[in-house]
């Protein structure tokens, strides 16, 4: 991969992260991060959809009349989301149940429309694909990090496995019920943004 492409892939991880810097896709980040498994599946789904919708729109970009471009983009995204949704239902039914409406809502995830409008409409297919994958992973990283913290402190587990030992509970330790509630996810994302910006001062808005 050329250095430009690597940059496209890596930038969304940190400096132009969809959640912490562009502040897109917050809704699903609050809703599906109670446990790690659904968060991971969600991250994977979004990555696939962003990657392929970017690729397809980029291939079509010269034939789409600009007046109806939004509707064309939506059709592509919706088709991909339905495929992903059906796959999830077929192979990981329990997780699909937990994600419920949020897989369908990937269609309205601002990250997708944002990348299509800002990147895929004006770039070649390969860089577009890489950009989509990068943004999906950037989104997924935050999702998994938030889910890790929420699951660890909220239910004492990591990826469904009990990690907080029983003797701690016997000593009086308790799981933090606030971690299960969406407001805490917002606070955790806020703290991540805080930490990130104190490492990268140039991200701080004037």
């Amino acid at each position, binding site marked *: 991969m050329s250095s430009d492409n690597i940059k496209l892939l890596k930038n969304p991880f940190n400096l132009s992260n969809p959640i912490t810097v562009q502040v897109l896709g917050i809704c699903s980040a609050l809703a599906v991060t109670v446990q790690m498994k659904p968060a991971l599946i969600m991250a994977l789904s979004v990555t696939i959809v962003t990657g392929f919708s970017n690729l397809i729109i980029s291939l079509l970009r010269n034939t789409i009349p600009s007046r109806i471009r939004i509707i064309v983009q939506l059709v592509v995204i919706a088709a991909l989301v339905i495929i992903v949704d059906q796959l999830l239902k077929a192979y990981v039914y329990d997780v699909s149940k937990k994600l419920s409406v949020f897989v369908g809502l990937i269609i309205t995830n601002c990250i997708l429309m944002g990348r299509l409008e800002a990147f895929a409409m004006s770039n070649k297919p390969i860089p577009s694909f890489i950009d989509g994958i990068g943004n999906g992973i950037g989104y997924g990283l935050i999702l998994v990090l938030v889910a890790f913290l929420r699951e660890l402190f909220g239910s004492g587990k990591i990826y469904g496995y009990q990690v907080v030992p029983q003797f701690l509970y016997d000593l*009086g330790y308790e799981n*933090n*019920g*606030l971690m299960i*509630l969406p407001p805490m996810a917002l606070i955790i994302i*806020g703290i991540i943004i*805080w930490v990130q910006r104190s490492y990268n001062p140039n991200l701080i808005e004037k």
Partner: protein
Amino acid sequence: MKQLRKIIDNIKPNFQEGGKFEKLRSTFDAFETFLYVSNKVTNKGSHIRDSIDLKRTMSIVIMSLIPALLFGIWNVGYFHFLSLGEDNVSFFEVFFNGFIKVFPIIVVSYVSGLAVEFVAAQIRGHEVNEGFLVSGMLIPLVMPVDVPLWMVSIATIFAVIIGKEVFGGTGMNIFNPALLSRAFIFFAYPSKITGDLIWVSELSKNKLAVVDGFSGATPLGNAAHGAFDKIPDLWTLFWGFVPGSIGETSKFAILIGAFILIITRIGSFKIMLSFVLGGVVMSSIFNIFAVNEFMQLSPLYHILLGSFLFGAVFMATDPVTAAQTSIGKYIYGFLGGFFAIMIRVFNPAYPEGTMLSILLMNTFAPLIDYYVIQSNINRRLNRVKNIN
């Protein structure tokens, strides 16, 4: 006393610019101004300096909390022995028993809160904010006596960082830190702050030793369960011989505190009055409809139950998070009391609504102020227009 001043003066150069411990200057400053009135003089412009700075304001609030604290300590011991059926215990023993239960909570609250304050001040290079002086005392007073200490510590740290330091420290916070720490435990560890077993010390531990017929339920808890015959009479509620959070039970002690706050003009009389008024109005409205027994409870009972008065006197009047304008204070207080009773009666999951309603009004205080100021501007503009 002179000896102490001498010691401070001796070590002072170490902490000033160029000194050995220059970095700890803010910490040193905090202790010095805590012990002595600051001798800072304004050197530009004409300013009148009052020696009543933030630290001394806070000290008066602490003083006004002392009656509630002392009664709370005694009450903890009283109910502990009552639950065990031991009734010939001396006053001193009762007080001491309460003291060893309550004191650790106070220490934990202060240590964890001040640690965060000091670290934050050092990082920012600010002076240490004295705002935590009062919060640190309020936090133990709004906790049930059996709350685990590590929860107090986590809740305090959370409240000070997320509720205060994130917004810029003392004077910038949106929410009352003491209430926020209680809300944190309320949502994170609900079993430790609601229910019938936690208000009397060690009730859940020695269940078997408890005398027959003794229940640790608070009067408000009884009301929420529909056990209205178990609510004590008004005088018992007023003096505070009921289980509850440490500082909230005695309305008499709270009124002493209110008196101190009002005559020193540190707590806002307007907020306290309108808060109580809001509660009276809401409970009177409920009285009119009177669909269930809880709604029929008279306003006087509503005000004496639970932490309503404590919230009105010590929590709602927090000068930072309350409304600042004069009319705004009336609106803020009134709505606070209004919603407190509404949450209490309507929501079975939250037996007490004062905490939630004050936190809610904290969010709206800036908005209330904004509209009060805007309407004032408009009125004056109209006056000018009419003259021309």
